């Protein structure tokens, strides 16, 4: 018999395993609550919605409140459950240390754009895509985006493997 699974070495693999456990638990629950005796289109659509929400929820809960984007997502879920409007939580800046005012050499950003707030315009679309992005400053936004992308790719990777597994078992 194989050894019991080792301690996970890095945070990302424990995040992945937390997500897997949560998501699989959610899938089991969805399957139990909405058994497919009749695979009507409505049922399938409902199930699709629930699976999608479960996937995003599982990831947000696995990240917990360590990130601005996950906090924003979690408060969104809670506000949907309760009927009241979301209370705007204050946005703490994380990870964003100011570097000393050294010479601004080799910057890829046009200084004029900064002065006119042009970078703000460029980040508008990104702010809409990242949960909680509207309230972040640019520094946080970029950092949060990187983490968000990592989590999304983990989501996709795990979901693909589950789909493949179910395909093979048919």
């Amino acid at each position, binding site marked *: 018999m194989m050894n019991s699974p080792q301690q996970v070495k890095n945070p990302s693999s424990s995040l992945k*395993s937390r997500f897997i456990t949560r998501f699989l638990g959610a899938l089991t629950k969805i399957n139990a609550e909405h058994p497919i005796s009749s695979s009507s289109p409505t049922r399938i659509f409902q199930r699709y919605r629930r699976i999608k929400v479960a996937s995003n929820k599982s990831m947000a809960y696995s990240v917990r409140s360590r990130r601005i984007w996950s906090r924003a997502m979690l408060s969104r879920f809670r506000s949907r459950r309760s009927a009241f409007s979301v209370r705007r939580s204050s946005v703490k800046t994380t990870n964003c240390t*100011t*570097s000393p005012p050294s010479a601004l050499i080799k910057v890829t950003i046009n200084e004029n754009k900064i002065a006119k707030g042009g*970078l703000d315009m460029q980040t508008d679309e*990104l702010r809409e895509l990242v949960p909680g992005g509207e309230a972040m400053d640019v520094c946080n936004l970029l950092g949060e985006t990187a983490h968000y992308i990592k989590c999304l790719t983990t989501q996709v990777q*795990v979901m693909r493997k589950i*789909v493949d597994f*179910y395909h093979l*078992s048919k």
Partner: protein
Amino acid sequence: MSSTRWRESSRTNISEEQITQLLSTLRQLLPEIPHSHSHKASSAAKVLKQTCNYIKTLHREVDDLSDRLSQLLATIDADSAEAAIIRSLLI
């Protein structure tokens, strides 16, 4: 309020290098694009645009996979397969 604005713009200037660093971190996460000249010269705007497109792609993939799962779940009892999946996924 002009002093606040000056403070904000100076703070932005100070963190430009950091923004550049963050942007290159982002660029490394993006899928490879066969651009011959995408050295350091890709502008912030390009990286942001590519990032937005990538996030949208990932959202669509989650959508699509949820859709496929919703149809596949119909045919399988999740309980028995769960342990096997977890084991195979964590390997």
